[in-house]
């Protein structure tokens, strides 16, 4: 079984508990205007020219973003940091893009980790069919479930898709008693305001089951470079990153409602 992976990052410390390896699968059904991994949206591998300076001379080489990899190849890398997962209560996180866009590949990866006794987390936007969730659920120890906006119209405007399916899937996972961390990107012009966040909080309160944790992810500019590199339009050009202090009001909305909430992953 093969799939398209665009990066594997070891010593990931913001993608779930403990020390983790994050495997980024390529392709995403959403197209959020603030996306910090814009090269991950398209499922196909992309090639870019990169330059390296050695002394005063420049050398160009072609970088392939997105590599076709076998399950075994991915697992071979993931397994290397097993001792760190064991020591820290970490594991592997599948992220993207949207990992559920390659469901069969993802299932094989999760299953292989599960057999190795490696803790698995899935970082997902939740925009998928319930049948796919049913397929992978058993092998997923933790869902890092993105929730972006309560208003479906605004959601569609800014991400390209409405949110009904997403909320339905979230409810489903909660009903199935899966472990869930909600991840809320806090984005200027989109949901960086109290009202939207209060609505979001109310929705989360109304859901069945237990939300272990809420992570607020303040908008950062680390992706800006990528827009330049891949020649893509950056709608966030010039927007400064949000600080911990900027989101403190939002933090307290959730905190006061009794949620276990943190800023950053």
């Amino acid at each position, binding site marked *: 079984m093969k799939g398209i992976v665009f990066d594997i990052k*070891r010593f990931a410390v913001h993608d779930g508990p403990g020390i983790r390896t994050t495997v980024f699968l390529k392709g995403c059904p959403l197209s959020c205007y603030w996306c910090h991994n814009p090269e991950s949206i398209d499922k196909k591998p992309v090639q870019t020219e990169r330059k390296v300076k*050695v002394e005063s001379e420049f050398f160009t080489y072609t970088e392939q973003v997105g590599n076709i990899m076998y399950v075994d190849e991915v697992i071979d890398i993931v397994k290397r940091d097993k001792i760190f997962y064991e020591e820290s209560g970490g594991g592997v996180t599948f992220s993207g893009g949207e990992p559920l866009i390659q469901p069969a590949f993802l299932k094989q990866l999760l299953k292989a980790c599960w057999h190795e006794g490696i803790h698995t987390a899935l970082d997902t936007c939740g925009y998928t069919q319930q049948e796919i969730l049913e397929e992978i659920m058993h092998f997923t120890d933790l869902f890092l479930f993105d929730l972006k906006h309560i208003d479906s119209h605004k959601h569609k405007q800014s991400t390209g898709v409405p949110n009904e399916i997403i909320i339905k899937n979230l409810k489903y996972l909660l009903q199935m008693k899966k472990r869930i961390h909600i991840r809320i990107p806090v984005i200027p012009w989109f949901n960086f305001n109290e009202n939207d966040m209060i609505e979001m909080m109310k929705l989360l309160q109304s859901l069945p089951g237990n939300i272990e944790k809420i992570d607020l992810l303040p908008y950062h500019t680390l992706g800006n470079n990528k827009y330049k590199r891949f020649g893509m339009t950056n709608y966030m050009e010039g927007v400064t990153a949000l600080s911990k202090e900027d989101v403190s009001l939002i933090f307290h909305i959730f905190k006061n409602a009794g949620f276990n909430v943190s800023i950053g992953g």
Partner: protein
Amino acid sequence: MTSRIKKLREQSINAINRLSAERALLLTEFYQSSHALGLSAPVLRAKAFEYILMHKSLYIGEDELIVGERGPEPKATPTYPEICIHSLNDLEILRTRKKVSFIVDEETLKIYAEKIIPFWTGRSNRERIMKAMSDEWINAYSSGIFTEFQEQRAPGHTVCGDKIYKKGMLDFIEEIDTEIARLDYINDPEAYNKEEQLKAMKITAGALIHFAQRYAEKLEYLSTTENNAKRKSELQKMAAICKKVPAYAPETLHEALQYYWFVHLGVILELNPWDSFNPGRLDQHLFPFYKNDLEKGILTKEEAIELLEAFWIKFNNHPAPPKVGVTAQESNTYTDFCLINLGGLKDDGSDAVNEMSYILLDVIEEMRLLQPGSMIQVSKKNPDSFINRAIRIIKTGFGQPSVFNSDAIIQELMIQGKDLIDARKGGASGCVETGAFGTEAYFLTGYLNLPKILEITLNNGIDPLKGKQIGLTTGDANNFTSYAELLNAFRLQINYFINIKIEGNNKIESIFSHYLPVPFLSILIEDCIKKGKNYVSGGARYNTSYIQGVGMGTVTDSLASIKWHVFDKKDISMKMLLDALKADFEGYGQLRYELLYNTPKYGNDNDEADNRLTEVFDLFYHAVNGKPNTRGGHHRINLLPTTCHVYFGSITGASADGRKARVPLSEGISPVQGADINGPTAVIKSAAKIDHLKTGGTLLNQKFTPDFFNDDEAINKLTRLIRSYFRLDGHHIQFNVVSAETLRDAKKHPEKYRDLIVRVAGYSDYFNDLGEDLQDEIIRRTEHSSL
């Protein structure tokens, strides 16, 4: 911090390093006097020691709590002409060099010109050593294949155990007398030698008691003229302490600290041993005194902290004795490598972390001084909270404390044949060197330039920078048909140079044994008294000689390049590679790019490169390990550079990993600067592929930018990272926490960063005191970490 400590700390930081001719002058006076005639070497040395302690000036700073200075005042640094004579030119260099300079005043120059240089010329140990070395040794030394630790300083590399906290010098004199009474001139051919050694030890023990008495008298005198009632009573108390210790065993924390300090001064006035001297497992030694004082109600925690901080400042007042030439380059720093150990295991194998461990961490954090250095020993039995506390200090970015694996240290010591309890009493000293504290004389003998030996191998025994044949003729590299053939040639060259080095080491050890015994240090280290043998002659229970490998990353990546490109992929011919190295890559930009970017590199958990690391490790290990020294012990390896990777780089041509000529080598077992691109877990996995337990210490540097430490969870993850490395038997890991931006600004505006301390390699130093090349290197590795 009390106002007293604040003042003493300021004074210590602002005191200017200067050279003092006092010791050299007293020593010369003694050697020229009739008292020096007709004595055996140990007694001569003991009498010289006695003479110095009897006549050297005393210093009692305003409001000091712990007294005693090596020189006439803080940071006034003596010289040791019996070891190495500083020429007028050397003094000029010391005076005028930009980094690690010492003020040398007119009077000192005059004393040197008129008295010191004329008398000692022809008598110094350095001259003896250089005369005894073979041409092969001189050639290898001049080409920078290895350095020689003992050419400007004496073998030290030892740490005080727990005996001084249980016994006074009078007890030791009694032990010595017992051994003398027991001597058997009928059956023991060594009896005379033993008696001379024991007599010498006895003289030095008496000399230290007398030295303390001189302080007691001066303190008493000062107390009579003191108007401030509080200070008056302090001075009286201090006088009473100096009357009691070191003659008798200490009973209070204050006595224990003052006792150690007198002992410390004794060791560093007797000679200028490497790594100064070191109280070692300080939390273990001091905790019983602290507890007892508290229980008796004679000390509060606050008072204890003040005493400990006063003690800390004493270390900072004592820069390393001035070094010149190659020795200055291999270890160019004011730091004298005292390394306080905290944590680890007790003799019975249980968790040794106690309240004193945490108090001392507070002291380290509050003092933020260059010296003493500090480290935590982490066993699987120590609690995480201990590591977390230490990381909170590490994250403030002054490079202390570093983190060591107790369980690995104990195994390393036991593999070398030490007793379990002796091993548990051990730790690390200097940079990362494993030692059995109080029982072992473990001499570091010199750094070995592994990339340079590969360079010589690729040039059939010729040092291309000198155009001289200094190695074996192992064949033209162009004719090697396989990687195995190259590796075998490399093995032969390593063995050849190691043998030259060991031959030199054994001569030098004998020279020290004959001419410069250290009777005072011998009192402190078991079993010198019992054996009637000197510390430098095998008197210690354990006697090890180390050769320190440098440039592991550079040599690994170079071999990986050659194997990958020349022999496996065959996309670069040996001839082309050698031409490129010879040209320092001028006109070979594309080839250098391939070497830098399209070649497996150590530090990425990639076996293709990491297997080269274990190959080099095995070659080095087998060349050295187990070869006898002159003291009944063996040669062993460790892997640490101090600042030698910069010096070694500066005399090594371009290397096959893409490194330009004269650029610093990699340090310790850290990957080549910038070559590790898969993060710290990959670095740790790579570094753990060598068997650390076969060494006497390895040094791994990991760089983090300050923002990594922003939250508790990150600190906890770092603790887990350390635990993982130690589970893989890693010996030591240290963290540099500064942003490249800060460092660049510091380079531009050194005046703004007078207190900026950074981790160099196995120790911390003021950024301003580092050479420009080392500053740039640290900026480079910091930049890399923030990508």
